[in-house]
Every structure is written in structure tokens, then in C-alpha cells.
């Protein structure tokens, strides 16, 4: 019979309640956003200003504060699709290898003869040797410069592929090393871009790797794509500074030629540093995650010759002192100088985990972008255009909604009212779910919602029409409602699954605004089936149980 067990009723109502509560913050978008921004800013700074406290108080802390993210096309901002020139790094590696190889070969000049670099493609090193007969020996020498690749797939492989071609040694990066290098380059580029963008403190920037060599950057609220490019292009300010003092006071007055920077590792800790770095990041050639002699995670690094000399002199004179590694006005770590470090390479030990040492290595390398980027796609959307779209979209949604409600009530009377209530809950659920999953609303997404308003009633219409038909064969209203639902079910399921399939493909294939549309459509399909099957039915049932009508008119 026409029954829904109590637990199911509770569950249905709970879902509806969830939708309404989590959608609610979106009605007070500005206020909740100010509240969230204030909390984020206060957490980052470690203290809260008066204005932030006020903004925070404008929305109660205990209420959900999740909001639907507004896409770039609604909020305005810049979008860039960058392609990282991975081959740049191969070339740099080969150029750096040449002096090393020359030196190694020069030591055995008697056997291999005079060497000189022959012209080659970038990314390949060709060295001509004077005595082709000694090629085997020359290859042996070159092979000594290769090191094993450390990666999941490249185990057992060396980083260089060395072969002979006539009187030339041909050196390139091995396949495994190329993969590892590419990954490192991408990781490093992403990290740099993320730091650069975070610095300007815009909300919810999207920085994503796409495919093997692309990076998608979307920054809401920024003036133009050019501004964004300028921001990404600037190099990181990395420096090794002598530490003069440590303390908890951020506002202490630094002396002449001194600066006070906060610690990244420990919030509330501040270092007073010499403003002039001993060595800068421009002189760093490499940094990698490593382990110290006790097997604890550490970071090893290497300077170029000029940096190495300065670094060696300073460490020799200041053993036992703290040495701060500063990135963009923040002290990343301040290790104790344990010994004189000649040769320009060293190791940073500290309270590291494998993860944090990897991160630090990335950050250290992240001084400058490792490779050039070309921009394949640039989009700037002005904030007014976005606001206009939001306004137009909401008006259209309202008008559409009112018209659909009128249409439904005029056609189905009381049952139309049920469908209207379900439609309202449906909207709440869409916004609730989008807020909860942090979904992004785009302009086509608004169109998706408007389309859902139109289509959401479809399942109800199917059921109502079916009930009408069943009433004609007259077996009492309860039976008609039940049969109406049963028989409409297969059409509802098939119709929605096929729509779901296309929306999924849209989600997988699309990007940006189109993907936003696919998400609202997917969520909309799920919620409209739920509201049509469960909510409308529950409303109908409650009404039916109260009134016990002998006849019903749909």
C-alpha cells in the first residue's frame, strides 16, 4: 500500500534540511564571504584585527559557512594556460655538463687527445675527441659522470645516455631521467606560480597541472592576464642571511641594516636578520631531498662557483651560528652551521620529515622559473561583466521559476503545489551540494540550473500524468497514486540515466565554464530525481493520511 516507513521519512526530511541549511549562506553571500575572508586572513597572520573581528561577527560561527565558488566568468579575473618549455631544462643540463666532461677528459688527454664541443641540437651534447681509437676509454670516462636516477619507474637506470658516433661522444638525458626531470620541472613551476599568486592573497586561485607540460592558472579578482603574467614572471627572492637574534615580537624595531622576518616552521617566532644576504638564490644551482649521515631526512644543495666561495668563507668564520634561509621575506629554516662548508655544496638538517624536506628542496629550487613558459590561452574578464551576468541570470531564473510554478499549479492543482515545494527544495539541494563540495558556479552553470528548473518537473509530470490515467481505471485514489509511481518509474530512471551519461561526458571533456555547467547539470539531475520520487511522494502521503479523500483530482 501507500506507505513510507518512519525511518525513511526521517531520512528524506533530514536530506531536505541539510540542503536548506547548507544552501542558506549563499543568500547572504557578501556577509558570509567577508566572514570567511576574515578568518582566513586572521589564521594566516596569527592575530586578528578589529575590522576582521567585525567581519567575522557578521555571520554566526556555528552556522555553516560554505559558499558556492563563483567562476571566473561571474567574478571577473584572469585565466592563463601556460605551456612549460621542458626542453629548456635539458639544454641547461647539457650546458652545465660540458665543463665537467671537458675537465674529466682533459685529465686523460694523453689517451683521448684534444676535445672540443661539436655543434648539436639543444638538449644533446656532442664532444669530438682527438683520438677516435680511444673512444672506448672516453666513453668510460663520460660514464663516470652519470648518476643513477631516483624515481619509481627509473630504478637501475642512469641519468645520462652516452653513445659514440664516429669521433664524437653523444650525450643526452636518458628516458628515465627525462621523465624525472620533466616531473621536477613541472612541480617546481607549479610551486613557484602558487607562491607568486598566493602572495597577492586573492581568493581561490586555481593552479593546476594539465597534461604533461601545461599549467592552468585562474585567478579571480586580478585586473588582467598581463598583470598575472607579470606576477608569475618575477623571480623568487631567496637569500641566506646571518641571524642576529630570535624573538616573539613582530613589532620590535630592527636596527640599521637589519630586518625582522617571521618563521614559517614555528608561528609566533621571528628572526632579526642582517638585511644583506650572504648568498642569494640566484647563485644556487640545485637542491634535492636527501638524508644526513644518521639517515634523517635533509636537503642537499649546491651553489655556483661564486656563491660557493662566499658561502665557504662565511661558514668557515661562523661555525655554531644560526644561518637563516629566507624566501620572500619569510624564514623557511634557520639551521646551525656545523662545520666549514667548502666546495659550494651542503646539507640542511633540521626537524624534517621526508615530505617537508622534499617541499623545502622544491622551494629552494623554486627561486626562478626552471623553464620558459609560453601562453597558449589568455582571458581577462572584467568584474562588471561578471556582475551583469549574475544579475541577468538570477532575474531569468526567478522569472523562469515563477512561470513554471504557475504552469504546474494551473495544470495539476494541489499536486502542482507539491511539485512546487519539491522544486524549491531541489534548488536548495543544488546550492547546498555545490557549497558542500566546493563546486564552482559559472555562467553556463546558471543556465544549467535554469534548465534544471524546467526539467525537474518532468519526473513529477510523468508521475502525475500516470496517476491521472490510473484514476480513469478507478481503483481508489491510494492505489492510483501507488501505481502512478510504480509505472512511471522506468521512464524516470531511463530518461535520467541517459541525461546523466551525457552530463558525465561533458564533465570529463569540458574545462572551465563548460565543466561548471556539467557539474550543475549532474547535481541537478540527482536532486531532481530525489525530490520528484521521495519529496513529492512524502508530501502527497502526508496530505493523503490527514484527509483520507474518497476521490482525488490531479
Amino acid at each position, binding site marked *: 500500500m501507500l506507505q513510507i516507513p518512519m525511518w525513511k521519512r526521517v531520512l528524506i526530511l533530514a536530506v531536505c534540511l541539510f540542503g536548506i541549511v547548507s544552501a542558506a549562506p549563499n543568500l547572504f553571500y557578501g556577509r558570509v564571504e567577508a566572514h570567511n575572508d576574515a578568518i582566513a586572513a586572521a589564521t594566516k597572520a596569527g592575530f586578528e584585527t578589529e575590522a576582521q573581528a567585525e567581519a567575522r561577527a557578521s555571520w554566526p560561527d556555528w552556522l555553516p559557512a560554505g559558499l558556492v565558488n563563483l567562476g571566473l566568468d561571474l567574478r571577473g579575473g584572469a585565466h592563463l594556460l601556460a605551456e612549460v618549455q621542458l626542453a629548456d631544462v635539458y639544454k641547461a643540463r647539457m650546458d652545465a655538463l660540458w665543463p665537467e666532461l671537458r675537465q674529466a677528459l682533459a685529465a686523460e688527454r694523453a689517451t683521448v687527445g684534444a676535445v672540443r664541443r661539436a655543434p648539436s641540437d639543444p638538449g644533446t651534447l656532442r664532444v669530438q675527441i682527438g683520438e677516435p681509437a680511444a673512444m672506448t676509454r672516453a666513453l668510460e670516462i663520460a660514464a663516470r659522470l652519470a648518476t643513477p636516477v631516483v624515481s619509481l619507474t627509473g630504478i637501475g637506470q642512469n641519468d645520462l645516455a652516452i653513445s659514440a658516433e664516429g669521433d664524437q661522444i653523444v650525450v643526452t638525458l636518458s628516458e628515465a631521467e627525462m621523465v624525472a626531470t620533466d616531473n621536477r620541472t613541472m612541480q617546481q613551476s607549479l610551486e613557484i606560480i602558487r607562491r607568486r599568486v598566493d602572495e597577492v592573497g586573492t581568493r581561490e586561485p586555481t593552479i593546476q597541472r594539465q597534461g604533461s607540460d601545461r599549467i592552468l592558472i585562474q585567478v579571480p579578482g586580478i585586473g588582467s592576464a598581463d598583470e598575472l603574467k607579470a606576477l608569475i614572471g618575477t623571480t623568487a627572492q631567496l637569500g641566506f642571511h646571518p641571524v642576529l637574534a630570535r624573538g616573539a615580537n613582530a613589532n620590535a624595531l630592527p636596527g640599521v641594516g637589519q630586518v625582522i622576518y617571521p618563521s614559517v616552521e614555528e608561528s609566533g617566532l621571528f628572526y632579526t636578520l642582517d638585511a644583506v644576504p650572504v648568498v642569494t638564490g640566484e647563485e644556487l644551482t640545485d637542491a634535492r631531498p636527501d638524508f644526513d649521515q644518521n639517515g634523517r631526512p635533509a636537503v642537499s644543495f649546491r651553489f655556483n662557483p661564486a656563491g660557493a666561495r662566499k658561502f665557504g668563507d662565511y661558514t668557515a668564520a661562523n661555525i655554531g651560528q644560526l644561518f637563516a634561509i629566507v624566501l620572500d621575506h619569510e624564514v623557511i629554516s634557520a639551521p646551525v652551521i656545523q662545520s666549514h662548508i667548502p666546495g659550494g655544496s651542503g646539507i640542511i638538517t633540521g626537524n624534517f620529515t621526508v615530505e617537508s624536506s622534499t617541499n623545502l628542496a622544491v622551494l629552494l629550487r623554486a627561486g626562478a622559473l626552471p623553464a620558459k613558459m609560453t601562453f597558449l590561452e589568455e582571458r581577462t574578464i572584467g568584474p562588471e*561583466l561578471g556582475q551583469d551576468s549574475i544579475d541577468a541570470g538570477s532575474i531569468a531564473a526567478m522569472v523562469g521559476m515563477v512561470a513554471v510554478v504557475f504552469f504546474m499549479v494551473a495544470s495539476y492543482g494541489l499536486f502542482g503545489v507539491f511539485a512546487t515545494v519539491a522544486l524549491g527544495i531541489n534548488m536548495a539541494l543544488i546550492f547546498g551540494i555545490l557549497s558542500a563540495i566546493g563546486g564552482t558556479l559559472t555562467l553556463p552553470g546558471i543556465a544549467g540550473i535554469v534548465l534544471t528548473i524546467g*526539467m525537474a518537473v518532468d519526473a513529477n509530470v510523468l508521475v502525475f500524468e500516470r496517476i491521472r490515467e490510473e484514476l480513469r481505471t478507478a481503483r481508489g485514489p491510494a492505489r492510483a497514486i501507488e501505481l502512478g509511481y510504480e509505472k512511471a518509474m522506468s521512464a524516470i530512471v531511463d530518461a535520467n540515466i*541517459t541525461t546523466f*551519461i*551525457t552530463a558525465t*561526458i561533458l564533465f570529463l571533456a569540458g574545462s572551465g565554464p563548460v565543466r561548471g555547467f556539467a557539474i550543475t547539470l549532474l547535481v541537478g539531475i540527482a536532486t531532481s530525481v530525489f525530490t520528484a520520487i521521495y519529496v513529492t511522494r512524502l508530501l502527497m502521503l502526508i496530505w493523503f493520511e490527514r484527509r483520507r479523500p474518497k476521490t482525488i483530482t490531479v
Partner: protein
Amino acid sequence: MAFRLKLVPAHTKIDFFRWQRGTFGFSVLMVLVSFALIFSIGLNFGIDFRGGTTIRTETVTAIDVGSYRSAVAPLGLGDVSITEVFDPTFGADKHVAMIRIQAQEGAESATPELVAAVEAALKAADPAVVFASVESVGPKVSGELIQTALLAVFGATAAILFYIWLRFEWQYAVGAVAALVHDVVVTVGLFAVLQLKFDLSIIAALLTILGYSINDTVVVFDRLRENLVKYKVMPLREVMNISVNETLSRTVMTSGTTLIALIALLVLGGDVIRGFVFAMTWGVVVGTYSSVFVAKNIVLYLGVNREPRKPAAGPEAEGFDAVP
């Protein structure tokens, strides 16, 4: 008896096959004409698909497209199209133009200098002009975008074909997909005739049309499947007519509500998504038409195996409470 708005009388007996040669022939003709138009006139591809730069300008005074054109012409940027945009949602002091510049030789994307030069030239022609949006897509990406878009449309069609075949029979799947192809081709054809901008969002609209049209078709098929069990000896054509008539009220109702919502968006939603919404609105009309006049004509032509299948198909055999 309460008042009810009835768009369709309770019992209709329309013979949808009466003009079947005409309607089906008309559909076939439209598809052929659309193909001819797509290949002869071609589509007005947006920068998503052919690369280039678009700049949207807004200003307070009436726009003289000629002065814009002569301002940009000395820059020698090749094919530059400037069109004024009109929209009922604009106020009296809002005038919008779209400027499209073709992809420049050898450049992956618009150089900042190019955009700056165009902006400076326009500022000189109209000091009040502001640039509401600047978008630039390199030829490399645009090629890939076309590929992805085509893949998406084919993938969706294939997935639907498979699902319908699984749930019904292959004849239904062929009928449904023929209707889908009809909808997509005719919509693209309309874009060719009207030379409306065809970009990525239109692909999204096409996929949505696929979803909507199949939705409609499935409802009719579902009823047909049910009626074939009910009326075992009636000719297929009659059963189809009964099925369409029985679901007609629902078809009109759903198309009606969806169209109302879409038309609201079309009129009031602003010009930025007008193309997208237009494609969708048109698609709903064509999709509704095709499920009544295309899909089932093909099923009728192919015939249906009317031997009862052993297991009762589908969830209609299960009650509401059995659904988790």
C-alpha cells in the same frame, strides 16, 4: 471538479503517421540541407576553435563601428571584425561592441603589445571606452579543443546508443540515435545559416540537447514497450500511435516548462550566454519534434521483435520500496 489548465485533451487520437512521408521526408531534407550549409557557408567559429583574440568593449555613447574600424585598421592585424551588440538588458547609456582579431602569424597567443596597441587605438577613437573582457586563444590549443569537442559529441552518442540497446532493443537504439543525429545536425545547420558564433559553449549546448532529446525519446519508447505487452496483436503502427498519444500530455507539459525557463533566460539572461541559450531552446523544440516524428518512424521501419522477453524488463517490475 477543480479548474485545470489542459494543454492537451485527456484522450487524443492523433494519427502521427498520417503524414509520415511528409514529416520524415522533411526531417531527412533538413539534415541534408544542414550538411550542405555547414560545408558550403561554413560555421562562424569563435576563437576557441580557430584561435585569435576577442575584445569586448563597453562605452556610454553610441558606437560608431566605422570609427573603431578605421582606428584599428592602421595596425595591420589582418582580419578584424567589429560588431555592435544589442541587448534588451542594456541601459540607454550602455553600448557594447565585440572586436575579433584573427590569430597572428607565428604567435601562440596574443602578445600583450598587440592587445595594448588595439586598446590604445580604440581609446583614441572613443575616450570613454572600457574593456570588459579580453580573450585570446592560440592556434595550438584551438586545434585540440576542436578534437576534444568532436570526441565528446561522438562519445556521448555512442554511450547513449549502448545504453538504449542494453535497456531496450537495438531497433530502439538506432531510432534514438538517428533522432539525436538529426537534432545535432539541424542545430549546427541553423548556426551556419544565421552565422552565429560557434564556440565551446555551443558544444556544451549540443550535448545538453542530446541529453534532453534522448530523455523525451526514452519516455515514448518506455510507453511503447509497455503497450506492446498490453496489445499483443495490434499492428505496431497503431501501438505506436497509442503510445505517443498517451504520453503527449507529458511531452507538451515538460517541453512547455523547459521552454518557459529557457525563454526567460534567452530574453533576460544577457548577451554573453545568448548563443548558448539559443542553441538549447532550439534544441528542445527540435528534440521534442524528433522523438515524435523521427525516432519511432525508424523503429517502425526496422520493426520490433514482439516475442515476449522472458525476464520482465526494467525497474517497473519493482515497487517504490525496493528502490534503495
